[in-house]
């Protein structure tokens, strides 16, 4: 009877999770969908608490309470600009939990597991371990605790491959000759190290792909846990998470016109690659605040193109205020969002939504590109590579073929930039040298605040 109740709660949870994700196909239905998923989770937890193997609730309750407190604190107080870091951290937590359950199962049986269970457990522990350290390093890079630039050395890929081969070798050995504790823990240790090595050569600009991949790994680790424990709801939820991450990483790669291998092993943005760009001549034209303000105030259509710079400057609210000021004057304001702008998929959308920009004003790449020729002023805020015309015009460029926001087709372009330096990829951006482009240097938030005042006076 009890088993039926537990299984029923899992079945209900699985259905509600799928309905919850289905709700995410539209912002209007998303909230209700999430409530369904939350209810499903609650049911699954209550069901599990009835499990006949549970003899003491002390540690369960302590863990649940402490975890809820930390989770609630993170959920309520993490600023939207820090969303990539928070997500990286939660990938690490999820993967770590999966790895721990696997280690505990192995330990409990003294390593003597059936072949199939051992295979699933090995997957679970390896994926869990490497995702934990990989995500922690991604977190450190995003938080600025370590430098965001790729870390490379000679023979890196060969070394990584050798390490991975050793880890997998031990895994395969353990499947057929189970029972060796030292070998198992060596495998776990190597997987932890491999996670670090995997993320080390990846630059900050490639983070959207890495985040999605780690998301996928964390999900697959959960699914593998489901195989170990013969638990269907774990398999379903883990697979959904795994596939979601996988689809996102493919979308991100496509948005950069690069293959997964290139992102993972290409160490993009390191010094070796950056010299490949064509030499740029000409000067960047700095323009006055008043000129820009007048242009914008009398424009028909203004398109904002935000990038990671908007997030670092926390400028999303200032952007919205400027947009409001313009809209009051009858200017049509739109936002062009590149899929890889920012540090995780959908990063810019969330920031602008936070600043109360209605989502109907946010346009995807394919929707906004045909609009640029009719746009009077395109305002680039802390974006660089996603508007680099070299991707379209220069086949020799490292980012050749990457779909870009074609702001250079607008009648006038304003680039808000912190300084004269290059972007994260280290590439020259010919957009900055075009006659149509004007540069405004300085902190984006400050520049925008001054622009608002200038527009009001225009």
């Amino acid at each position, binding site marked *: 009877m009890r088993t039926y109740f537990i299984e029923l709660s899992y079945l209900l949870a699985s259905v509600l999770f799928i309905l919850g*994700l289905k709700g995410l196909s539209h912002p209007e239905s998303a909230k209700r969908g999430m409530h369904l*998923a939350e209810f499903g*989770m609650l049911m699954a937890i209550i069901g599990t608490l009835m499990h006949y193997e549970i003899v003491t609730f002390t540690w369960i309750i302590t863990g649940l309470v402490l975890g809820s407190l930390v989770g609630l604190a993170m959920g309520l107080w993490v600023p939207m600009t820090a969303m990539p870091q928070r997500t990286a951290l939660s990938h690490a937590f999820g993967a770590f939990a*999966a790895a721990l359950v696997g280690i505990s199962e192995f330990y409990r049986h003294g390593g003597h597991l059936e072949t199939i269970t051992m295979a699933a457990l090995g997957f679970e522990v390896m994926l869990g371990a490497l995702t934990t350290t990989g995500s922690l390093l991604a977190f450190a890079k995003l938080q600025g605790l370590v430098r965001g630039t790729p870390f490379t050395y000679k023979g890196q890929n060969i070394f990584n491959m050798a390490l991975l081969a050793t880890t997998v070798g031990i895994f395969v050995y353990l499947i057929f000759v189970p029972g060796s504790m030292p070998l198992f823990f060596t495998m776990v240790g190597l997987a932890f190290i491999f996670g670090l090595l995997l993320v080390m050569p990846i630059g900050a600009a490639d983070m959207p792909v890495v985040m999605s991949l780690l998301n996928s790994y964390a999900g697959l680790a959960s699914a593998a846990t489901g195989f170990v424990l013969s638990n269907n709801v774990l398999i*379903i939820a883990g*697979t*959904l998470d795994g596939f979601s991450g996988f689809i996102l990483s493919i979308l991100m790669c496509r948005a950069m016109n690069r293959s997964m291998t290139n992102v993972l092993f290409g160490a993009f943005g390191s010094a070796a690659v950056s010299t490949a760009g064509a030499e740029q001549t000409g000067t960047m034209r700095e323009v006055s605040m008043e000129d820009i303000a007048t242009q914008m105030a009398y424009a028909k259509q203004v398109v904002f193109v935000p990038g990671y710079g908007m997030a670092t400057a926390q400028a999303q609210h200032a952007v919205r205020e400027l947009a409001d000021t313009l809209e009051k004057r009858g200017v049509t304001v739109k936002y062009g969002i590149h899929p890889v702008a920012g540090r995780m998929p959908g990063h810019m959308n*969330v920031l602008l939504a936070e600043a109360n920009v209605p989502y109907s004003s946010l346009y995807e790449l394919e929707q906004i590109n045909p609009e640029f020729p009719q746009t009077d002023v395109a305002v680039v805020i802390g974006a660089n590579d996603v508007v680099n015309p070299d991707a379209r015009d220069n086949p020799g460029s490292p980012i050749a073929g990457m779909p870009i926001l074609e702001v250079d087709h607008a009648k006038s372009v304003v680039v808000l930039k912190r300084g004269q330096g290059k972007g994260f990829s280290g590439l020259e951006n010919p957009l900055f040298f075009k006659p149509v482009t004007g540069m405004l240097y300085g902190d984006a938030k400050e520049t925008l605040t001054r622009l608002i005042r200038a527009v009001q006076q225009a």
Partner: protein
Amino acid sequence: MTAATLISAFYVFALAAFLGYQVISRVPPLLHTPLMSATNAISGISLVGSIVTAGAHYNTVSTILGFTAVFCSTTNVVGGFVITDRMLRMFKRKPAAKQEIKK
């Protein structure tokens, strides 16, 4: 694990993968960040495994590992859902009045 349970587990996996692909490819880029935090919260379902490990008292090591896992997964579940909710509440349609002017 018997062959029969393994096969049924693979069935579940394959169907979930197919369904996941269908459902998730319909999520617009607008909601990709909430999607990530939502799937994160959902995969915190590994909590189910951790709870049994923490409460079954197989041995002390397992209990400690289980407890840590319960803590980590709960953080993900609660944090993930709270933050997804917070994000989704920010996504607003254009105020109705303004849309009428546009027309």
